[in-house]
């Protein structure tokens, strides 16, 4: 990636939310196989209310990531999620584009 600007930038938003006193999780695409809609390194940021900004897929798995993010914000323990067509859960959340992705979810702060 050349580093295309993405406004408003998810990591800027994460900083603002944290400054507002909200719990924040950062989800990052760490690996992709096949036709994944967002490149490795893309961020989705989520607050404790379930507000989110940015993306880790074309909208297919964001719902599931937001649910996991709530646990990560509560526990502080980072985790790695995997979605793909080979996986029953992934099919249910709808990564039907044929790709597989791994996402790292961590708490900010």
């Amino acid at each position, binding site marked *: *990636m*050349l*580093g*295309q*600007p993405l406004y408003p*930038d998810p*990591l*800027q938003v*994460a*900083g603002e939310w*944290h400054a507002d006193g909200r719990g924040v999780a*950062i989800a*990052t695409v*760490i*690996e992709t196989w096949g036709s994944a809609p967002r*490149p*490795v*390194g893309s961020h989705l940021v989520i607050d404790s209310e379930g507000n989110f900004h940015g993306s880790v897929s074309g909208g297919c798995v964001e719902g599931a990531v937001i649910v996991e993010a709530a646990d990560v914000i509560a526990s502080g*323990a*980072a*985790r*790695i999620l995997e979605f793909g067509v080979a996986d029953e859960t992934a099919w249910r959340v709808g990564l039907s584009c044929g790709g597989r992705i791994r996402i*790292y979810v*961590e708490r*900010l*702060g």
Partner: protein
Amino acid sequence: MLLEHLHRLNTARDARLAAVTITPLDIGEARLFLEGELHDPAAAPAIESALRTGKSGIVEIGGQAAFVNVYLPPPRIVVIGAVHISQALAGMAETAGFDLSIIDPRSAFATEERFGKAKLLAEWPEEALQHTPLDAYTALVAVTHDPKIDDFPLAKALEAGCFYVGALGSRKTHAGRVERLAKLGVNESAIASIHAPIGLDIHASSPAEIAVAILAEIIQTLRTRDVTAGRRAAA
């Protein structure tokens, strides 16, 4: 992510500085490196490769899998001279993902009719570069042939550590330019880093072909640059 890392990362990105985060996949403590900082020797090859290619991914560092995320500022091209070559270069640069702007004080050259939606500044470089400062992720291409227009931005680009500085003109024209820049106080090794004659040697002939040669040389320089030295000049 540590809050301190997020703040340093966001500040670096605002300042158009490159940064790399390394997160061990066994969920250990992540680390943040800014371009030009001393790197941990075990992680240095992964960091340098990420800075050069702009590619994030999983790599092995010290026998352990880690995710390397690289944040590069969007590369820019600043062209001095709204000439025929610049018309071709504007379209190609956009396709290749560069943010291009053209500066030319000659209002007959810098017209919307000739350049469509390209970013045009019909000003002297002395003025234009005040609101569009040059930096390490900017390529400067001087193509007017006119020392009154080209020399100042060339000196500025070398001072700012632009990753690429190129100037159009024959070897003879360039010899004159080298003398003038030396008189302006630009140091010898900086002058020697100017790409002149400009562009990869592909025997380009038409303005569009010369634009291809210039863009190819910019990409080659961006992807092979020395990322260990940091920025050449203090920001």
